[in-house]
């Protein structure tokens, strides 16, 4: 090749390399463009020399060519087709830098032309037909020049492999993959066949017509084979794709149906938070049409007081790319405002950018109403508690004054009756004394009644504790005390072991004291008293406790009166007592959420039952 050719090739190579390696700097593209420009210039000038017959003294500018060089028209001057190729190549390289619409396509086209122009000489050399490498008397394009042109043209063609024609070859889709597989065959097989024909003809194996016919037939066969192979390959790929699409469609159908089946409103917006697809469930409720709901139009259905707040939190969420949750009222198509809760989450692409927003909107009117109701009821409850608190305080004050003020006159009555008995002994006869005794006994009784009543009242005010109480232990303690108080009485206590319950320890002690105390009292006249405490086997979940004695018993006809305050079924002479014991027991058991009842038979004994509820105040 000529010197200028070599130099131009170097410049073109540099230009291409710098274009491909271009980073953010500005000097690489600049130098690349300068080089490309020089290449173009050289080509242009040389062409002009040929076309216009001028000598522009550029041919021997670098080195002088020795005379007698082979295949040369003018000393040092490159072949005309070489020059034209440089002109086109340089332009293609320059156009690579351009971003305008068709620059890339033109650049790639030019590169193709360069390649084609150089293709011919290659054939010429291959088929030993030199004249193909040039025209007329002019210098021929050298073989290595043509080869270099081909390489460069491929390089420039693929320089922007993502655009224009090159993308068809270089792409990811099936077509490109197929092209890459088929192209070598398309470029190599025909020349090889041609070479066979030429050589065959030269060797005399067959004549022109025969050679032509053979080549044509083989060409047809090759083309058809290629077509079959492409079709088969594409079919397979397409079948795979179709299958994948079907699976995806199924999944999409499923989720679409799911969304439709759920009564929730499901909405989507684009990455900027604008509604772009209609929301049928929402539109159904609010009566908005498709175009009314787009963008931010959906917010028109919101309550005017909530609208700004909702739009603000929505834009906040979109900006912050965070979870969105808000409650608001919206107008239904019949004009009634319902409460809704909307929630949204962003959908991210594989690079972490937001592709769209998806969310739901639920009607929470019932829930809000329930919440309001609860709040109101709670308020009322608080009021009641306060009221009850003050009532309790009043009761306390009442019993306080009772304990003072009612007792004092009683003391006077009793005291002065005694004084009367002592001081006026001689003046009183037996009747008088007996009257005074009765007076005194009545006052004492009244004092006892007052104490019992106060105790009963106090019980209802007391705060109930809740702990595991060992009833058996309590019963045992009480039994021991009773026995100690009356050691002369032979009594048998049969107490069940291991009975525990949840309740207030103090109050349950009072219950057992009363029941066991009663049993003790009413067996006083029994020769062999027997008192039992235990639990019944019941089918249900609650345990029934009982205290049984074999004492005086009672008539079942009066069973309903047993637990009334101050109700007695015996006179005080027979058995002492104010009749408040069982009322107290019932009060305590009731507070535990349980029940009391009794069975008895006159002269045989009585059994008192009680249960303790699982839950109590």
């Amino acid at each position: 090749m000529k010197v200028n050719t070599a130099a131009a090739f170097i410049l073109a190579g540099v230009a291409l390399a710098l274009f491909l390696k271009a980073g953010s700097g500005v000097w690489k593209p600049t130098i690349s463009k300068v080089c490309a420009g020089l290449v173009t210039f050289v080509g242009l000038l040389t062409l002009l020399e040929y076309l216009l017959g001028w000598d522009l003294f550029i041919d021997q500018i670098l080195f002088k060519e020795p005379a007698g060089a082979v295949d040369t028209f003018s000393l040092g001057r490159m072949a005309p087709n070489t020059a034209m190729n440089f002109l086109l190549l340089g332009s293609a390289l320059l156009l690579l830098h351009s971003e305008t619409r068709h620059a890339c396509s033109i650049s790639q086209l030019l590169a193709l032309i360069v390649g084609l122009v150089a293709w011919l000489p290659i054939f010429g050399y291959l088929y030993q037909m030199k004249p193909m490498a040039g025209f007329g008397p002019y210098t021929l394009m050298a073989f290595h020049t043509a080869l270099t042109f081909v390489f460069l043209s491929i390089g420039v063609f693929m320089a922007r492999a993502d655009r224009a024609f090159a993308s068809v070859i270089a792409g990811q889709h099936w077509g490109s993959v197929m092209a890459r597989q088929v192209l070598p065959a398309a470029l190599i097989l025909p020349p090889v066949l041609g070479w066979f024909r030429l050589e065959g003809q030269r060797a005399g194996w067959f004549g022109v017509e025969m050679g032509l016919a053979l080549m044509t037939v083989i060409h047809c066969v090759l083309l058809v084979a290629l077509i079959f192979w492409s079709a088969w390959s594409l079919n397979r790929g397409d079948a795979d794709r179709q299958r994948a699409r079907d699976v995806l469609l199924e999944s999409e159908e499923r989720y679409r149906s799911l969304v439709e089946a759920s009564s929730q409103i499901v909405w989507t917006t684009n990455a900027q938070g604008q509604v772009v697809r209609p929301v049928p469930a929402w539109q159904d409720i609010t009566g908005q049409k498709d175009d009314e709901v787009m963008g931010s139009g959906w917010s028109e259905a919101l309550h005017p007081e909530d609208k700004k707040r909702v739009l603000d939190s929505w834009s906040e969420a979109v900006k912050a790319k965070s979870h969105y949750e808000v409650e608001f009222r919206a107008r239904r198509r019949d004009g009634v405002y319902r409460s809704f809760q909307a929630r949204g989450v962003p959908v991210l692409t594989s690079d972490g950018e937001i592709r769209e927003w998806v969310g739901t909107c639920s009607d929470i009117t019932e829930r809000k109403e329930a919440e309001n109701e609860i709040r109101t009821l709670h308020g009322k409850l608080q009021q009641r508690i306060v009221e009850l608190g003050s009532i309790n305080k009043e009761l306390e004050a009442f019993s306080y004054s009772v304990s003072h003020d009612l007792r004092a006159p009683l003391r006077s009555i009793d005291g002065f009756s005694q004084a009367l008995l002592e001081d006026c002994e001689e003046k009183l006869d037996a009747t008088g004394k007996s009257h005074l005794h009765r007076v005194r006994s009545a006052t004492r009784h009244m004092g006892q009644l007052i104490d019992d009543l106060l105790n009963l009242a106090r019980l209802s005010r007391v705060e109930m504790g809740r702990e595991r109480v060992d009833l058996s232990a309590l019963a045992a303690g009480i039994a021991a005390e009773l026995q100690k108080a009356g050691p002369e009485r032979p009594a048998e206590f049969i107490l069940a072991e291991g009975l525990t319950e949840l309740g207030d320890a103090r109050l349950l002690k009072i219950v057992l004291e009363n029941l066991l105390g009663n049993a003790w009292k009413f067996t006083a006249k029994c020769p062999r008293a027997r008192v039992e405490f235990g639990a019944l086997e019941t089918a249900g979940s609650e345990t029934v406790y009982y205290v049984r004695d074999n004492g005086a018993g009672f008539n079942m006809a009066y069973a309903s009166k047993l637990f009334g305050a101050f109700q007695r079924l015996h006179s005080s002479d027979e058995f002492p007592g104010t009749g408040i014991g069982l009322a107290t027991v019932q009060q305590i058991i009731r507070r535990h959420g349980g029940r009391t009842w009794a069975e008895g038979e006159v002269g045989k004994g009585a059994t008192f039952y009680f249960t303790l509820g699982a839950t109590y105040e």
Partner: protein
Amino acid sequence: MNNQTILLVEDNPDDEALTLRALKKNHIANEVVVVRDGVEALDYLFCAGAYSARDPHAIPQLILLDLKLPKIDGIEVLRRLRADPRTQMVPVVILTSSREDRDVVQSYTLGANSYICKPVDFNQFTESVRTLGLYWLVLNVPPPSLAER
């Protein structure tokens, strides 16, 4: 030297009569001074008002204090007499009909020595007074008077 006076603070005339009767029955011979309300009690103790002529050093040996009193009630009397060094150490027995926890706690907090509930039964009451007198007037060592300290 303490005189052996017992100060009885009681507004109810019946209770007063019965208490005095009980004391007499038990042969408790100390002089008993009766005051009818809180103001009188404090006047007596600090020699003010109607009792200005009293000897301030003559502090009673025992004070029987009822809680429900007109004008100034027993609790307030207790508080004031415990606040004054002259009467700080005098044995005070609360003799009242109330059994309320509140009263018991308050009395002890303010420095009462003992708390007795007046029973309705007069015999029991007499018995209580006997025990009371025996304990506080005979058994118990009285605190020295201010002059002696």
